[in-house]
């Protein structure tokens, strides 16, 4: 533990009726890391993100995010995090700039700084030329970049991304990765992403944790995890190792539907 902590999870449990979606997980994410939460559909990734972003209350346990307890000070947590949900959530009926303006006002970016911040982030995300276009005419990759911009306007300490490149073509996916790495080095924030894309985990993440049936079954740096399985192993092998099977069952119907829906919107 040499770096300060951005996220710390204590014995977190969440039940939905009979189902235990999260089963006593504990985890620490160092400040400035890009941390990947991996696992098959239904393993508890999205539930974890919903709890850490205060959308959902845990059944037991708690967590600290950006210095504040999610149960005791949810409003303080919300002011210090950025969030990009899995669905493409930029409002298509608004222009890119209007989407950003909404975020700026909700997060309380002072009036005299708004335009400057919006312009800076638009340029950073290579969206300045499309700023006055309605977001419904954006490509999937552009919408993702717009959402990242929205989540960054208030300079959060921790950024949560739920399946950030799902459904994107390889070029758009690569661009999002590049922007994420840039963002991290420019703004020195912590990023927690969920993914089941092993290439993404390999390229982007400093550290990984594998979730399976609501439990953390493995954790470490990508290189260490691969090495532990032998010289020729890649992350797919690691994933298979931890999830028990390469043909993973599970995932609620609604998860699959949401994933398809998101992919569909990417065109």
């Amino acid at each position, binding site marked *: 533990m040499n770096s*300060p*902590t*951005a996220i*710390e999870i*204590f014995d977190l449990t969440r039940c939905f009726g009979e189902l235990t979606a999260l089963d006593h997980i*504990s985890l*620490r994410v160092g*400040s*400035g890391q890009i941390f990947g939460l991996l696992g098959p559909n239904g393993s508890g990734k999205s539930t974890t993100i*919903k709890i850490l*972003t*205060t*959308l*959902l209350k845990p059944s037991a346990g*708690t967590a*600290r995010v*950006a*210095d504040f*307890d999610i149960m005791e000070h949810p*409003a303080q947590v*919300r*002011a*210090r*995090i950025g*969030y990009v*949900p*899995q*669905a*493409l*959530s930029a*409002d298509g*009926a*608004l222009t890119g700039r*209007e989407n950003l*303006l*909404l*975020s700026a*006002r*909700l*997060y*309380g*970016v*002072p009036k005299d700084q708004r335009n400057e911040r919006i312009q800076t982030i638009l340029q950073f995300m290579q969206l300045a030329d499309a700023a006055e276009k309605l977001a419904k005419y954006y490509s999937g990759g552009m919408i993702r970049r717009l959402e990242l911009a*929205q989540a960054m306007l*208030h*300079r*959060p*300490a921790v950024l949560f991304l739920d399946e950030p490149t799902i459904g994107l073509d390889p070029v758009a996916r690569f661009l999002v990765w590049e922007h994420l790495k840039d963002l991290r080095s420019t*703004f*020195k*924030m912590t990023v927690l992403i969920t993914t089941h894309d092993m290439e993404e985990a390999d390229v982007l993440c400093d550290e990984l944790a594998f979730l399976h049936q609501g439990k953390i079954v493995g954790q470490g740096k990508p290189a260490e995890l691969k090495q532990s399985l032998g010289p020729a192993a890649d992350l797919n092998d690691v994933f298979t190792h931890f999830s028990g099977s390469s043909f993973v069952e599970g995932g609620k119907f609604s998860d699959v539907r949401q994933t398809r*829906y998101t992919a569909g919107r990417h065109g």
Partner: protein
Amino acid sequence: MTSDKPVTLPDDMAENTARLAPSYGEQVLAIADVEIRKLLRDPTEVFSRSVQPMLWLLVFGQVFSKLRDIPTGGLSYLAYMAPGILAQSVLFSAIFFGISVIWEKDMGIVHKLLVSPAPRSALVLGKAFSSGARGLVQAVIVYLIAFLLHIELNLSIPHVLGVLLAVILGSAIFSTFSLIIACLVKSRERFMGIGQVLTMPLFFASNAIYPIALMPDWLKLVAWVNPLTYLVDAMRTLMIQGAQSVEGLAVDFSVMTLIFVAFVAIATKLYPDLVR
């Protein structure tokens, strides 16, 4: 791993967050502003909704004005029903507001709003006021039709402003009611069913097109707890020359304000459930 271990963030980040001070009013306005922009960009829905009040006034109203049996307190029947039809169009356009909220939930927009530091009540109020803006368009349309039909309108500025205030309050009440239903049913299909079931009873169990005095006792009871009754009474009093308030304007606006506050409190409690 203990929870009380001091956690440090990069200085610029921590300082920056501390500097941001969102104001409640700004957040409410931000939400309302977004909805109004969308409305102005694509006003087709508002105009298609003006067809119904036109039909009620031009067809139903013209025929029923031949009946002399409805006690309208000395008003022509058309003058009596015009405010009722405005209230109806406010009700009908606000009651389906929840559909768009469910759509926003499916898109992940609600998730994003709920993760922002804006208090839930600011989000609910912003939505309610945006619905008020829609209602104002309905008001302009009904005033126009009423004017063309030579209905005895009271066009003094305080009276017109009073009507517009009632329109905003009424829209806010029914759109927040709709938001509550959306939070409870969570799917568009179920919402459509309930929306259809609610609108007609709310309309008929009110003083919109006939006085409550004509109703059987059990229906009177429903009318008295129906917010639409107070909306119509206020609008009629302010909009039409010579109209007498049944409940009293102070009662009308107090009851509506109380109902609105209660609905906002309930919606604020339920709104986060949408994403669970």
